[in-house]
């Protein structure tokens, strides 16, 4: 393992310190926590706060999306490990301006349970909270008897939409309805060329041969649904689009937002080449995205690969939310 770190057990506090001190115009840290709040949180007076968070290693998510028009706060857990209820609770307290706090949680047992416990703590203080559990990853079969699908890069689109609505004065109930309406329309699928190395572990989460790729990986080096010899970008795009198509029924009469998300070690050059192939495939279906982002938004440490998120825009308002101006590091 070769990383620019000091102590593998101390990466998160050092990272959060470096982040907040590099961007004091956007961020401040809640003392004695790894929770990061908007530097201008006070300007949210009278509005609903939005708090997200999760394990670290996904930078710029989630702290990079804290700022005007997006999140009020983000709680940074240990690497790939949900943050703890006490810290989430601190962020909720600070994000509450009497109108309640909306929580964006990715669908992992740990995240769901820790945010639940934080909600319980907030309830004691009479802080109203609502939660959306994002599960956009279509690589995992859904089922009532299991944890279900994972929350991955599509979560960033959820942040963007809720953040824009909250900034424009949406109530906690409005946000709840909006989140519920948006959620089933966001679908993501990923691909890995190389797994991530957790600093405290010191070796990649799984091994791929020099010519192998894995389809359907998560953002914590969770293995995916199949492993193959590496192919041209165009064929990888075909596979991912086919999976999305199965789940969203892509249709030229509908509007879509698209996010191509780099996993951390994949350069923009490759992401743009993939986008070129993707846009060609969509064009063949008569689709030109109404909104598109390409870059590193929800990474997985030094994993090489990318994910494709397609979001069916069912209401024009949703597109306005995506285009709403923000002041953040990462969007």
């Amino acid at each position: 393992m070769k990383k620019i770190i000091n102590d593998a057990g101390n990466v998160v506090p050092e990272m959060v310190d470096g982040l907040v001190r590099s961007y004091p115009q956007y961020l401040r840290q809640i003392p004695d926590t790894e929770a990061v709040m908007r530097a201008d949180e006070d300007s949210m007076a009278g509005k609903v706060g939005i708090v997200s968070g999760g394990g670290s290693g996904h930078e710029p998510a989630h702290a990079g999306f804290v700022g005007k028009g997006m999140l009020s706060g983000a709680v940074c857990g240990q690497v790939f490990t949900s943050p703890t209820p006490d810290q989430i609770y601190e962020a909720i307290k600070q994000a509450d301006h009497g109108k309640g706090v909306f929580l964006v949680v990715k669908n992992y047992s740990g995240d769901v349970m820790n945010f639940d416990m934080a909600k319980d703590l907030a309830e004691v203080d009479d802080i109203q909270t609502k939660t959306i559990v994002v599960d956009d990853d279509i690589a995992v079969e859904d089922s009532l008897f299991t944890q279900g699908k994972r929350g991955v890069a599509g979560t960033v689109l959820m942040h963007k939409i809720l953040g824009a609505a909250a900034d424009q004065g949406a109530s906690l109930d409005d946000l709840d309805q909006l989140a519920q309406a948006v959620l089933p329309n966001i679908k993501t699928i990923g691909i890995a060329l190389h797994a991530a190395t957790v600093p405290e572990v010191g070796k990649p989460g799984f091994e791929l041969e020099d010519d192998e790729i894995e389809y359907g990986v998560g953002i914590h080096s969770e293995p995916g649904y199949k492993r193959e010899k590496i192919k041209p970008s165009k064929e990888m795009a075909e596979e991912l689009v086919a999976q999305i198509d199965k789940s969203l029924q892509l249709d030229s009469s509908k509007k879509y937002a698209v996010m191509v998300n780099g996993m951390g070690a994949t350069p923009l050059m490759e992401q743009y080449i993939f986008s070129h192939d993707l846009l060609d495939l969509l064009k063949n279906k008569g689709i030109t995205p109404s909104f598109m982002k390409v870059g590193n938004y929800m990474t997985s440490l030094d994993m090489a690969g990318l994910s494709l998120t397609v979001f069916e825009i069912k209401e024009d308002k949703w597109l306005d939310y995506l285009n709403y101006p923000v002041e953040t590091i990462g969007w």
Partner: protein
Amino acid sequence: MTMALTVDNLIEWINNFSQKVNEHKDYLSELDTPIGDGDHGNNMARGVNAVQESLTNKKPAELTDAFKQVAMALISKVGGASGPLYGTAFLEMAKKSKDTTDLGELFTAANEGVKKRGGAKVGDKTMVDVFEPLAEKLTQGLLEQSEIDEAVEGTKDLVAKKGRASYLGERSVGHLDPGAMSSGYLFSALIETEGIL
């Protein structure tokens, strides 16, 4: 020496558990690699070290306080799935310890808490597969290392239904559940604590 749970042997038990977790930290993370995200050892080590710090800084006067201190340290330091689950387990034991010091009853309460918090049941390839049968053995006064090993080993052939391993579906078969293993240490630590059972 009466065979009963006291603040002192509770601390000894927890110390034994901490030692095991630290000793097997890499092993627990390794178990968490093929069917998880490779952090269970680090999560648990961070937790038990915080527990030890808490118990050293402020020795609890009462059993209930002791359980609560353990719970709070785990809840605020472990994170992930195991943090709220172990935290809930000890919080439930704290509550129950107001009425009884019987470890069978305490662990039955803990197990109910874990099941409620995480929604898992026996057979889902989680720590519940260790907690539930061994709480039962404790109640019967029959807890032995062989029972612990059997419970932990039993998770190997299961298909995971909860937690990260569930994303793998059938491919989770053939791997021990890391949380079951760490729970196994909690029970082994109990056996090794003189005078507690």
